[in-house]
């Protein structure tokens, strides 16, 4: 619960002087993500840089230090019946706000309530020159200067060290219920997309093991009437289901320890490729998890990328597999050059999370 930004700055300046690469660590719950850490990196710990700086429920704005645990934020918001609308996955009690933004992680409500990137209003960060900078702000709209805040989403800390994040928060919906339908993957995708095009309070659409789950959230009357009109079977303990989906605690994900877990981010209407193995569809079709067939070797990354591109999107190796190779979707050469130059613009000595995102960064 303290501000250690000057210590962080000092450590970065020393590292810059010694050209000592740094590995940024928050709560350590997302160590499995990105590429394997190259040896010789010194840990820069954000865990001590924690605490809510300001929270104004009526303004719908919360500002917290990057090392603040998500569960602490959720508890504070809960008191005012508000929430982090991007439903961040909590991969462990120590999972932090900064790590969530750096990894651009959002939960099941993302297509309807926005992602962590969407809800970020401003950040403070330390760049590779050891400068503590502020971008964006604590207001909903701010178009002065380049959007450096949202740029950080997905960068895996390669552009700098996030120290503070301001977010838009939202009231919790007053009611929620989940409907379950028997459906194959193709049929489920078609239903999800058709339902999402209706002006109804849909807030989650997931398919797993022959069952389609549709979540409705909003005013009680709207949820009740839509549920009546859509039919389906009500799901008991629905809140647990969506939380387990969010945090990858469903049995589907447990199998991931043996088979690598692939994440497809694609056109929500794209057909599911005919592949051996298992699929879980989330985000109304826009996010799909794939696990290879038990007992078979890992899927070929180039083949996965070809499938993702055919579906209008990208794929990454989310968990497991060979993490010394590339785990993110390949970039065309022109994009590689651009991203390398962007990295240099923030971190000229390549101090931060070297090789974590791509081997060439």
């Amino acid at each position, binding site marked *: 619960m303290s501000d250690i930004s000057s210590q962080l700055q000092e450590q970065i300046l020393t590292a810059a002087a010694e050209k000592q690469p740094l590995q940024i660590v928050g709560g350590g719950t997302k160590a499995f993500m990105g590429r394997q850490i190259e040896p010789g990196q010194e840990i820069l710990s954000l865990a001590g840089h924690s605490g809510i700086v300001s929270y*104004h429920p*009526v*303004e719908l704005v919360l500002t917290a230090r990057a090392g603040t645990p998500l569960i602490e934020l959720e508890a504070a918001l809960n008191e005012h019946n508000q929430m982090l609308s991007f439903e961040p996955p909590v991969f462990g009690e120590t999972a932090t706000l900064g790590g969530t933004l750096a990894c651009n992680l959002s939960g099941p409500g993302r*297509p309807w309530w926005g*992602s962590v*990137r*969407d809800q970020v209003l401003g950040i403070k960060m330390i760049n590779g020159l050891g400068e503590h900078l*502020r*971008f964006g*702000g*604590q*207001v*909903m*709209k*701010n*178009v*002065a*200067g*380049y*959007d*450096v805040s*949202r*740029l*950080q*989403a*997905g*960068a895996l800390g390669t552009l700098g060290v996030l120290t503070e994040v301001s977010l838009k928060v939202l*009231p919790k919906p*007053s009611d929620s219920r989940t409907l379950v339908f028997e459906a194959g993957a193709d049929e489920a995708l*078609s239903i999800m*997309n*058709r339902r*999402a*095009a*209706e*002006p*109804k309070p849909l807030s989650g659409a997931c398919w797993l093991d022959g069952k389609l789950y549709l979540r409705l959230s*909003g*005013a009680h*009357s*709207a949820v009740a*009437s*839509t549920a009546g009109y859509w039919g389906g079977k009500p799901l008991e303990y629905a809140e647990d289901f969506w939380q387990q989906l969010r945090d990858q605690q469903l049995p589907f994900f447990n199998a991931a320890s043996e088979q690598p877990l692939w994440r497809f*981010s*694609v*056109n929500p*209407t794209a057909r599911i490729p005919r592949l051996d193995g298992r699929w879980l569809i989330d985000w109304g079709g*826009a996010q799909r998890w794939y696990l290879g067939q038990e007992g078979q070797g890992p899927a070929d990354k180039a083949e996965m990328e070809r499938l993702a591109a055919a*579906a*209008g*999107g990208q794929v*990454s190796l989310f968990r497991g597999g060979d993490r010394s190779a590339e785990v993110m*979707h390949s*970039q*065309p050469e022109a994009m590689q050059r*651009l*991203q390398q130059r*962007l990295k240099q*613009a923030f971190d000229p000595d390549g101090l931060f999370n070297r090789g974590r*995102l791509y081997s060439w960064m």
Partner: protein
Amino acid sequence: MSQAETTGIKRNRQALAERFRAFIDPEYVISDDETLKPYECDGLSVYCEMPMLVVLPETVEQVQKVLQICHAEGVPVVARGAGTGLCAGAMPHPEGVVLSLAKFNRILEIDPLARAARVQPGVRNLAISEAANAHGLYYGPDPSSQIACTIGGNVAENSGGVHCLKYGLTVHNLLGVELLTVEGERLSIGSEGLDNCGADLLALLTGSEGLLGIVTEIRVKLLPTPEVAQVVMAGFDSVQTAGDAVGSIIAEGIIPGGLEMMDSHAIVAAEAYAKAGYPVDAQALLLCEVDGTEEEVHEHIDAVEALFRRLGATSVRTSHSEEERARLWKGRKSAFPAVGRISPDYYCMDGTIPRSQLAHVLTEMDRMSQAYGLRVANVFHAGDGNLHPLILFDANRPGELERTEEFGAKILELCVEVGGCITGEHGVGVEKIRQMPKQFNEQELAQFHRIKAVFDPDATLNPGKGVPTLRQCQEYRSLDMNIEPNAGAAAQHNGRCSHE
């Protein structure tokens, strides 16, 4: 500019025009002063500059060639959509080419099931919603210029509108863009999915004011058209009470589709113009629009009405038909022209503030208004804290525009002081470049310059806009301290028109 310089530009102009005419329809390469004239400014006409040339290419390959030639010759390129922008972001460069994307006006694809549209940058904002309407869908952001403004311009400025609190800005409603770099290299940013691997370049490009690249195609999200929308209008006898009412709606857990506030000057002007039935004796007026399913809207409208009454609204009226809803909005939507009728000229500001600071900011503004002897009417996107003070002035009175600009600058500085920012949706352009150092320090501005250099090392894309050079910042500072800057010339407002 000296005689010799002018002659030099004219010579370059004809030579360059001939090169462009080799691959662009000669009619769409404009090089005569008379036809160039309409391009001298955007929606902020106090800043203008004659361009060297205007080109209106029709294909991506043509744009690519224009960029390649300009890059090789070091010629500045200023991209332009419909020219409705309000920060002089599309003001031409005297030695540069205006790259108009007006011919890129086709909607390439509407995918109703995926709720997305692929459009060219010159497509008008409203045209997307009109085309999507057949599928029960629409495009969310609705800047007040939506009849005319283009989606490419919206991407460049990260445009907002009156529905941002619930539906977000342009950046929240994009999936991807096709980009040409300053060298004319093609890049795809984003995809048909909701996110992509690596740093979010789509967010970086959105709102970058044409400084980083030229967008040639855009994939936008479409939203289902709400079943119902109803608006509650309420008059209040103080701005403070109206501000509290806004907070109470949010505290109730309601996120209105639109939530607008007007002060007494704006109410009187709008009512005289639009006859919307506004209470002209009120000190503040709120328009709260709730949209969603029928049941939800009924539930929330009842709650909002009750809340307004409980908080002491002097009048409350709810729309019960689409005509009535349109009438209630008409006053707000015509607030700018309405204010234009009660004053020879007006200057629209675009600061944002934390909502809790509203009463303080309005009181301060009132004080300044008296000190400057200039009236100011306020229109406020209350839901998202975006304030549009309209300063009333008469450009024909010597010195009044300068006083207006100074007053405006003070308002923006006040916004920054209370925790807000200098622009919520209009962008920086030329207009607010002097206020950038108020919001960002030198290290932050230097970081912006390094980002710019990644995309455009020679700084030929829309030069002089968006981010001040560190030298400019030093000059602003000496001006602020009333010290004569040594260079002198840089202290002048680049491109200010006399409009004699």
